[in-house]
């Protein structure tokens, strides 16, 4: 699709500036979805549960980041070195808070239902999603709240032949890439990461090998929540408005991204997230934002028909 639009732009405007801008915005937006989608896909891989509350954990992450800006008294006049330090601190706070929240939800709502029919934890997840949405309403009210534009999200950082890269784009991409790399390294090499993969493949065998399955699952939720919290902070800075409903929207998009890439598959989640980000930008820009959800979901159905296990392929128990 981007290729088709690139050709269209070349013939219509004689340059690739428009599609270039679409791509940059799309990738940076998609980076946020990718972070949220990673949490979905990890949790699905290990307990085969669509964690509906995950989007709300992301929303709470945004809210905490917003509150943390206030605690540190960060505003538009803060000097740049202090600002960077403060943002890193806020990132840490919102990530840890979201991670803890996600792990707590697992402990209270999903662990008692480990042996119940598969739909039971799905319903508690929906229940938690509702509860957290209302926490959001009570916290910041039912409408959009604007966040101080600390990084000058829309200011152009640099330009390559008309294609603008803004501070917001840079922030999203520069935060997401290291996080994803760290996560892949962790899952590949660390002891806990190996335990996660083992539990995802076969929990019973993992337990026989001496892996504490409950602890491993808790850790998975914690890490998924950490990423969602980080995404929450980026979202707050990037969009400069937050509200209680953002988690629901992001949750739908991110879950779609995870499924599109192939659920349980980390690379798939990242690629799915970025792909959806790009599709959204192109559709927002050329068809109209009100039709974007229709385009995204129609694309998802198309992918499912052509490749029933996602673009890259799933990594779940049934898939072997």
């Amino acid at each position: 699709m981007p290729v088709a639009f690139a050709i269209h732009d070349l013939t219509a405007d004689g340059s690739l500036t428009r599609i270039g801008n679409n791509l940059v915005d799309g990738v940076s937006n998609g980076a946020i979805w990718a972070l949220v989608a990673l949490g979905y896909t990890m949790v699905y891989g290990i307990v085969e549960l669509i964690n509906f509350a995950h989007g709300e954990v992301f929303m709470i992450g945004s809210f905490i980041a917003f509150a943390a800006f206030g605690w540190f008294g960060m505003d538009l006049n803060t000097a740049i070195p202090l600002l960077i330090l403060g943002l890193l601190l806020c990132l840490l706070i919102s990530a840890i808070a979201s991670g803890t929240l996600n792990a707590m939800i697992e402990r209270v709502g999903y662990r008692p239902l480990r042996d119940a029919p598969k739909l039971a934890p799905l319903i508690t997840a929906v229940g938690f999603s509702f509860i957290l949405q209302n926490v959001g309403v009570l916290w910041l009210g039912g409408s959009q709240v604007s966040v101080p534009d600390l990084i000058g999200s829309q200011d152009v950082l640099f330009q390559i032949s008309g294609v603008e890269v803004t501070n917001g784009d840079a922030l999203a991409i520069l935060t997401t890439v290291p996080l994803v790399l760290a996560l892949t390294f962790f899952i590949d090499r660390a002891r806990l990461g190996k335990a996660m993969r083992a539990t995802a493949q076969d929990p019973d065998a993992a337990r026989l090998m001496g892996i504490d399955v409950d602890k491993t699952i808790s850790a998975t939720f914690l890490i998924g929540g950490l990423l969602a919290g980080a995404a929450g902070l980026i979202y707050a800075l990037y969009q400069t408005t937050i509200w209680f409903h953002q988690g629901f929207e992001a949750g739908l998009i991110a879950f779609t991204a995870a499924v599109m890439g192939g659920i349980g598959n980390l690379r798939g989640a990242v690629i799915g997230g970025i792909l959806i980000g790009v599709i959204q930008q192109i559709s927002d820009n050329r068809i109209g934002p009100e039709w974007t959800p229709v385009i995204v979901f129609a694309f998802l159905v198309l992918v499912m028909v052509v490749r029933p296990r996602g673009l890259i392929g799933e990594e779940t128990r049934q898939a072997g």
Partner: protein
Amino acid sequence: MSAALGKIKGFDQRFLVIAAILFAILLPFFFDRGSSFMDDAVLALAYVVMALGLNVIVGFAGLLDLGYVAFFAIGAYTMGWLGSTFYSQANGGEGVHLLVTGAAANLPGIHVNFLLVLVGAIILTTIAGVIIGLPTLRLRGDYIAIVTLAFGEIIGQVAANGDQVRIGGIWDKTLGALPLIPDLGSEATLTRGKLGISPVDKIDLPFVDPFTSLDIRSWYFVALGLVLIVLFVNVRLRDSRLGRAWVALREDEVAAISMGIPTVKTKLMAYGTGAALGGMSGAFLGSYLNTVNASQFEFIFSIFILAMVILGGLGSVWGVVIGAILLSFVNSWLIPDVLNGLPGQLGLDFDLTQVSFAIFGFILVIVMILRPEGLIPERSRKQEMHGIGTGDRAGAGSDVELGEAR
């Protein structure tokens, strides 16, 4: 011994069912015709119809559908299109009237008798159900959930943006040019978006005065009639060859296929049946609520109905009825009317309706943790949950089912 026990149990159940139906018939005579309780009761019955429809898809056939709201939307829009002044330019501004009496007979727009609309809604939603079912045939488990969710969202968004979709021109040139089919006028759009199509014609049955919004009792009896029809359909389907094929597919798809169950046909039948029931209820609600509005068709609604099915007990017809009635009253009566005074009495200053979703969520979490199999579980599921008959007996049971279903 066991045969005698079964007889007593069967008698008990039949007695309970008759008692419940009698209770439902007599109930409205103890309440005022226009009371808010009657309003809640009509909504509860309409939700029972939807929950039973979703139960066919999720409970019987085991296909997790997160986009059930699509069928509500299509049913309601059928009512809106065929029973309102929305297409006021139809037939050159004269309007189209088919077997309608009362005020609607003199208004512009398309006005078709409610029973015919009901048939139309059933046909349209069945087709939609099959179309939505087709791409999910090769998928399993949670992929089905996301694809149905996607369809639900697509329908909801098309409804919300439908005021931009001008169908009038194309319609008049193609279908509208055929005999017997009215033209719609060039200004006609697909929906009226978030403004909603309103007012919608009231139910208009033969030999009865047209319904009014003041007398809810007559609406109640129509809703009860729909519930009884759907209950009959559900029970008969459950015990039919098709019902057993659904259960077989749900329990073990590979085994079911190897026993010769036609998967495609069986699954599509589940989608079609479930969708038709949702469309019926949708058409009824479109008329009863007097508006067909895009904001009614959001994802939350699919979850609301799914929660009824799971709360009651997946696949259990009577459980689903109870679950639907309970959650509907929690939503329309317990939270806004009963609990709402509580913070004030405790000296707290906040509006409880603001957190109604949280209360709803809290109830879901508590019920699931305490009773994950649902309030009145299906017999086989209950045994599964409590470890009875998971060994030889369950195996033997499913063999019998599969054998017969062939």
